[in-house]
């Protein structure tokens, strides 16, 4: 379990803070290595909160986000990463070529 803390308004999502990964390559790797059950639990927790998350984070310019807000943003980006698992593939991955060969730089 990560030690990331989130803004007070979103402390209910603290349980899933291991998804607060700032780098896209880490979010990709985590998705590939997480069970469908855990992905689904994370997705179900985030979906009802995502509008509020965007509204909350949009109050500031990106460059002014503090550490807790950046963690929250990373969790939202992880939701996008896993959304396809539920909304398209019914699996942690599409199974297409190259998950092990692809090198994400940014």
């Amino acid at each position: 379990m990560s030690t990331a803390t989130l803004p007070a308004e979103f402390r209910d999502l603290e349980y899933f803070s291991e998804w607060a990964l700032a780098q896209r390559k880490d979010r990709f790797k985590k998705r590939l290595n997480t069970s469908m059950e855990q992905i689904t639990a994370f997705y179900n927790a985030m979906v009802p909160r995502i509008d509020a998350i965007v509204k909350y984070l949009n109050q500031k310019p990106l460059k002014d986000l503090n550490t807790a807000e950046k963690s929250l943003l990373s969790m939202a980006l992880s939701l996008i990463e896993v959304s396809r698992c539920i909304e398209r593939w019914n699996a942690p991955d599409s199974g297409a070529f190259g998950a092990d060969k692809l090198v994400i730089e940014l």
Partner: protein
Amino acid sequence: MDMKTDMRYEARYGMGTDPLSTEDCISPAYFAQEKERLFKRAWLCVGREDDVPEIGSYLVKDIAVLNTSIIVVRDKTNKINAFHNICTHRLNKIMQPGTGKAKAFTCQFHGWAFGLDGKLIHLSNENLFANFSHEKSGLPKIHADVWKGFIFINVAAQPKQTLQEFLGEMGKQYDNYFEGMELRGKWHIEVECNWKLFLDANTEAYHAPTLHAKSLAGPIADAENPDCRFNDVRLFGKSRIGSVYANPNYKPPLIEGKTALYAKTPLYPATSAVTDKLPAGVNPSKSPMWAFDVSVIFPNLQVATANGWYLMFLYWPLSESRTLMEVRNYMYKAETAGDLISQEFPAVHQRDVLREDMSTLEGTQQMLYSGVLKEMNLCDEEITVRHNHVSVAQFMAED
């Protein structure tokens, strides 16, 4: 969409309908010719100005098909220079691949140092060299020029054409489209296939309903256009634009749909009506049912252009049967978290769609080697494939 005009691109461009030989994808002799007659004579994109944003910023790249390593640098006059990454002393490779910033390029072997303009500015023990000339000892220069922020090089001693001449009419299709967007993603992959097969796979669309059934068919095919036929194909010399249809009634699933709403400009799929504000080469037929374009600037730069984002692909042959593909996402500047969250969907989903595109490549390359069949059968929608192979052969045959 009028499905009755079945041979429209043959009617317009007359490229022919014969099967196409696949020898150019497996022959080591052909690949050797491509090295000498194509890659060492053409203008090749190696990056963008945003790779070298400040004076002294540099980009170092190993380019196997040119048998060299290059340094691209922004000098004190703000000019982009390119050099072979080789010390004129004992020919050591000076810099390691990557990006950075420097006041000079210093060889770690004996400390020879070269300025941002390539001139030799320091060496020790000059008095021990007989007949030494500073002037003749600068970094070997490579012709370099910039188009719409894309940095091109040409390793020919005297390129036959300027970059502008080389780009021809294709270079006039984009106005300021590529300005004002920032790098949002970057990744690369090596695949066991010929570079032209790779390019073929990523620049036609009618495989979408089958190959992309899981991830892309919904947005770009429907009852009106079940085969995902191009809205249009435009050929400009050896370069080309293929414009991809968008299903105007596509209903995205929950989070995918929400991300479009968080954006300043709807991103993906881009069924935006603001096509009249985009230049000639972007959605060339100005269709309201437009997703994006798949376009190739000859020989190996692909851009997938859309409203508010584009992808940039470079295909680097490592051999006749192995290719390095570099991919970048460029998107409009993100000012809020909502922008970033919205942009994340295309950034990750395009990557995973491209993995589907790559799924056929190694199998195809393997079966080409069987020699059992030696020709592809191409349909009218695959004019982009035909044009790819024919353009390469044409350039190689030209003076």
